[in-house]
C-alpha cells in the first residue's frame, strides 16, 4: 500500500468514514469533523501506523496532506 492509501485508512478510522479520499492538496478544511480532538487522534493514529513521532508542534504546522506524505516518505 502506498503512503497515501495507508493515510486514508487512518483517516477512515479517526473520522469513522470510509468514503474519505485524500489528495496532496487536502487540508483540514476539506474534512468535516476535523476539530482539535480529531487533530490529536489523527496525530496519534499516524504515529502508530507509520511508527514515527512528530515534534510537539510539527504536525500542526503541516500545510496539507502532500507535505505530510513527503514528511512520512522521508522517514521510510
Amino acid at each position: 500500500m502506498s503512503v497515501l492509501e495507508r493515510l486514508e485508512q487512518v483517516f477512515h478510522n479517526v473520522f469513522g468514514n470510509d468514503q474519505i479520499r485524500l489528495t496532496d492538496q487536502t487540508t483540514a478544511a476539506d474534512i468535516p469533523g476535523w476539530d482539535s480532538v480529531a487533530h490529536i487522534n489523527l496525530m496519534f493514529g499516524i504515529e502508530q501506523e507509520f511508527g514515527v513521532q512528530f515534534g510537539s508542534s510539527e504536525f500542526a504546522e503541516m500545510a496539507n496532506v502532500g507535505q505530510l506524505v513527503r514528511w512520512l516518505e522521508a522517514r521510510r
Partner: protein
Amino acid sequence: MSTEATDPVAAAADAMRRGDELRQAGRIDQALGQYLAAAAAHEVPPAALCLKIARCHEKLANFAEAGRWALAAIDAGDDFSTWQAAAPLVQKHAFAERAPLRSIRLAVLGSYTTTQLVSALRTALARVGVAAEIYEGNYGQYRQDILDGGSAMYGFGPDFVVLAVHQGDLALPQISSDPAKDVAAELDRWTSLWQALGSRSKARLVQHNFALPAENAMGHLASRLPGSRPFMAAQLNLEMGRAAGNTVSIVDCERLSAMLGKQRWFDARYWHISKQAVSLAAVPLLARHTAAVIAADLGLSRKCLVLDLDNTLWGGIIGEDGLAGIKLGNGPDGEAYIAFQEHILRLAQKGVILAVCSKNNDADAREVFEKHPEMRIKLDDIACFVANWQPKPENLRNIARQLNIGLDSLVFVDDNPVERAAVRQMTPEVDVIVLPRDPAQYVAALAGYLMFETSAYTAEDAARAEQYRARAQIAQLQATSASIEDFYRSLQMKAVVAPFNDVDLPRIAQLVGKTNQFNLTTRRHTLEQLRQFAADPACVHLTMRLSDRFADHGLISVAIAFVREDVLDIDTWLMSCRVIGRTVEAEMLKHLCMWAAERGCRVLRGTYIPTAKNGMVAEVYGKYGFTQVAHSAGTTIWEYDLGAKGPINNTFIQNGVAGGFTHERA
C-alpha cells in the same frame, strides 16, 4: 489475480484483498463474504478485519451484526485507533437488537482532556453488556461540578461518577517538612469531595488513583524520604484506599501505569498539545479496567472458572502419559503449570468457584489430584468435577445446573482451540479465555480477563468453595432420604435472622446487585440506598444467615419491607440460589410475619416483577397462602391477611441465639 493458496493464513490475506476490491467497487455483500471467509481463519480475527466487516454490515443495514463485529474489533487488543474507529459503530449498534444487561447514567469528571476516555469507556462498558448514557464534565471542572449542588452534573442524575484525575492535580510540595500533615490535608481535599457528592447524590463514586510519574528528580532517595513528593503521592494512594473502604470504588491507575510502562502511560507531547494526562496509547486499557470496576459494582462479575486439565493444569495427557509422564513441577514447563495453578488458587481465595471440565476417564483425572505430589489445586478446591467424554458445551450446561448458577456466570479456560470454538458456538453465554501456546504466558492470559473483578471481599467469598461442595453433598443426601420432610430435618439447619448492620452492608449490596433467580422484584438498590433503608424507621430490613450440618452458608437472604399504615409492603426479597429448595423462603416469611405483627400491620403485601431469570419465584407468594390482588404487564401483587390466616411458620429451621425476632434493630 488470486493464486490457489494452500496456507490458511495466505488464503485469508487473499480473501481480505478481494474483499477490499469488491468494497471499492461498491459490491458490499460480496465484499462481506470475502471478509467473513478471511475472519474464519482466525480464532481472534485482527481488528482491522473486524472493522471492515462491521462497516459492511452497517451499510447492509445488519445493525446487530455491525455492533457485534465492532465489539469483536476491541477484543483483538488495546490499540487506540481501533477503539476510536469502533466507538461510533458500538454506540449506534451494540444494543440494536439485544437488550443491555444494565443501563446506567455515568458522569465522567476530569482534571485533563477526557473526550477520548469517555468514548472508550462507552465502548468498554458495552463490551460487558452495560449501556451508558454519559455526561462529560467540562475540562478541569470536577470540583465545581461536585461542590455546586445546582451543577449540570447533578441535573443529569448519574448512577456512577468517575473521577478521572491525574497526579499533576495533587497539591503536594516537592519537599515537605511535615509530610504527615501535607498528606492528611491532601487526603482531606479528596474525601471532602466524596462526602459532598454523597450528600447530594446516590451515585457510586469511582476514583482513579494517582499514577506516579516515571521521572523523579529525587532519584532513589525518594524511596526513603517520606517528605519527597513521590513518597507522599504513594502514601496518598494507600490512605485513599483505606478511606474508600466499601463506599468508593478505586481504579488503581498506579498499577495500570506500571503494567503498561510509565513512559507509555504519559507522553509529554500530548500533554503540551492538548492536556492528555493519560496518553492515548493507555486510554483503552484504562477504559477497560474502569468498566470492569463499574461492572463489578453492578454485580456483573462472573462466578465460576471452569478448567480443562490436560495441557491446561499440567503438560501432557494423563490418559496417555500417566502420572509419572505428565509435566508438573519439573523443568520450565512444569514450573509454569504450577505458577498457573497457584494463580488459580488465589482467584479461588477471593471467591471464584472452581470447576473441572475435562475429556478424560474420571478415575485417571482424579488420580492426578489425589496422588501427584506437585499438584497445587486439590479435589477439595473443586466445587464440581466433570471428567467424561461428552461434548464440553453439554458438560458446561451440567456444571451450571449442578452449581445452580447461570451459564453466564461461567468462564472457560482450555488450551484446545477446537474446544474453545465449540463452547463459543454452542454456549455463547460462557466467556472463553484464549490460552497462548506457551504455558509461561497462561497466568498473564488469565489475569488479563477482567470479569473476575469484585467490588468487596466478604467472609462469604472466602468460604465459597466449601459451600458449593456442600451443595453437591446435599444433593446426594436428598437422594437417600425417605421423605422430603426427613431430608429437611436431616440437614439440621440453623438460621440467624437480623436487621442490616454496617459490617453486612457490602455483602447485602453484593446479593442485591447480582441475585437473578430467587429475586422477587430485582430492584438493584445501591449500597448508599441500602444504608439509607437501614436508617429509615419505616423500613423493616432483614438478613438471614444459614448453616447446616455440612457448611456455614453465610448471609444468603435479604428482605426489605416498608410499613405503610397497616400493610407491611415487601420491596425486595431475594435468596442466594445456593439454598433454594429447603424451606429457607418459609423461614424469611415467618420473620416478616413477626415483624408485621410487631409493627401493628394487618397485611403482608408482596410484589412479583418478572424478568428473564426469575420465573422460579412467580408463584412463591401463592404457595404460602397469599392471595393475588392485582396484576399488570406480568407484575403481580399479593396479600396475606395475618389476622385471618395466622402467621406463616416453618419447623425445619432452628433459630440461632443471636438472631431472630428478639434481636435489637440496628
